[in-house]
């Protein structure tokens, strides 16, 4: 479904990605793990068009998207939960969710999805008229994830969804991830620090070090890989 071929991405003159290649099949959850600053976020941003790779190509369903503007990419069904949440601070919770469905036209569907989200996160329902910027860190994270779900993406890019969430909610989030994959067949590209959990839900995993993909395997094999264990699982 998504094919990243040898992309190199720069920030000004700093090279963040070196010939990165990845592949995601339809309906799959893959996870990308790696230390801080490895280039995970940059990989996601390259896919969603916020930064453009200098060389290499990104194909979505066979179509090149690496020269497209972000809004066109979103239109194709790729949606991202960015690092740092990026809640619209002056919009209320419900308006924030509404923005997630910006490109959708089916009012009924939006309404139904909204209800579903509120069921999923009662906290957000409680706070639906509060300004996004005044939510607590964890509440914002829930909102960011929900907002992305509102777009009904075909490919969902998640950047550290568990950041700042209470243990209970973390478990819940990962269950939701599994659920949306199963129920709506959404493909998921998951970047996580909590490699343990990520590898548990993912089908396959990639390991990234200083801008290069260094390992690629079934999630379960990575989970038992000694190197990975030592470097990322903290065991």
């Amino acid at each position, binding site marked *: 479904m998504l094919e990243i071929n040898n992309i190199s991405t720069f920030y000004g003159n700093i090279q963040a990605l070196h010939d990165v290649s990845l592949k995601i099949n339809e309906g799959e959850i893959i996870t990308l793990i790696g230390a*801080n600053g490895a280039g995970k976020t940059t990989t996601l941003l390259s896919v969603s068009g916020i930064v453009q790779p200098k060389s290499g190509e990104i194909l979505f369903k066979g179509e090149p998207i690496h020269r497209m503007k972000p809004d066109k990419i979103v239109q194709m069904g790729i949606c991202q939960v960015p690092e740092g949440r990026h809640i619209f601070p002056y919009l209320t919770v419900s308006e924030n969710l509404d923005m997630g469905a910006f490109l959708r036209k089916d009012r009924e569907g939006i309404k139904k999805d909204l209800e579903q989200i509120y069921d999923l996160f009662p906290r957000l329902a409680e706070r639906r008229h509060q300004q996004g910027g005044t939510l607590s860190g964890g509440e914002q994270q829930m909102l960011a994830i929900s907002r992305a779900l509102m777009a009904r993406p075909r490919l969902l890019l998640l950047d550290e969804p568990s950041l700042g969430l209470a*243990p209970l909610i973390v478990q819940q989030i990962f269950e939701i991830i599994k659920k949306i994959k199963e129920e709506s067949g959404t493909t998921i590209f998951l970047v996580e620090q909590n490699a343990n959990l990520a590898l548990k839900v993912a089908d396959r995993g990639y390991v990234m070090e200083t801008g290069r993909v260094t390992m690629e395997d079934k999630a379960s094999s990575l989970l038992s890989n000694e190197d990975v264990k030592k470097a990322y699982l*903290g065991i």
Partner: protein
Amino acid sequence: MKQNDQTLPVLEVKGLTMDFGGLRAVDHVDMEIQNGEIVALIGPNGAGKTTFFNCITGIYTPTSGDIIVHTKFGEKRINGKKPNQVTELGLARTFQNIRLFPNMTVLENVMIGRHCRTKAKVIGALLRDPGTRKEEKDAAAVSYGILEKIGLTHLANEMASNLPYGAQRKLEIARALATEPVLLLLDEPAAGMNPQETEELTGLIREIRDQDKIAILLIEHDMKLVMNLSDRIYVMDHGQRIAAGTPMEIKNNPEVIKAYLGEEADA
């Protein structure tokens, strides 16, 4: 909890309450922290932990309640004091969303922390008299020392914005340490770190307490870190304190499990 009747707690909070419009984010919370203690504050998202921090550090003025500090820099009720005054009294903090000075170097970031412990005025800056020069040199040396302890010296001349996330978190701690705190307040210091880095951080925090005798109050969702590190734990939910006790007690407190930890809590 007083171990010794002569020593007063560093921080004493009584009935702290904070309202936002109709929303009561912190509801009559009490807390006491002794010298050299590591205390954790945990609770579900939106429980009011960060707000509690903000009240103590002067970012918000609490609706009611008392916050009293006893430090070598003075004893005061600090409700409504400005953040810089609180810091001068020896309470330093880090932020849940990292707030460094992105376009300054790592060393400069730490030196900013020395600001409230140095005195040079405009005249001194212009004349660069020996006193000022010495002070400046000392500030740099102390800051460098702190970076050494934290393990960031190799990045000392790097722009803060260019640092990897984990290093930024550490830098926040270094910066706070530079203010010579008696009590250090850490808001989710391990967020965004991988387990390995979290491990390192645990060691660092313990070291800070052991070597510098600094009391630490920390908010964290990483239960492994919390349970490993803390002497005592407070649990908040819906603005209220729902439990307090040793890690063991908290781990087995059914109310805490229900509200926060979930069944398969400890990692």
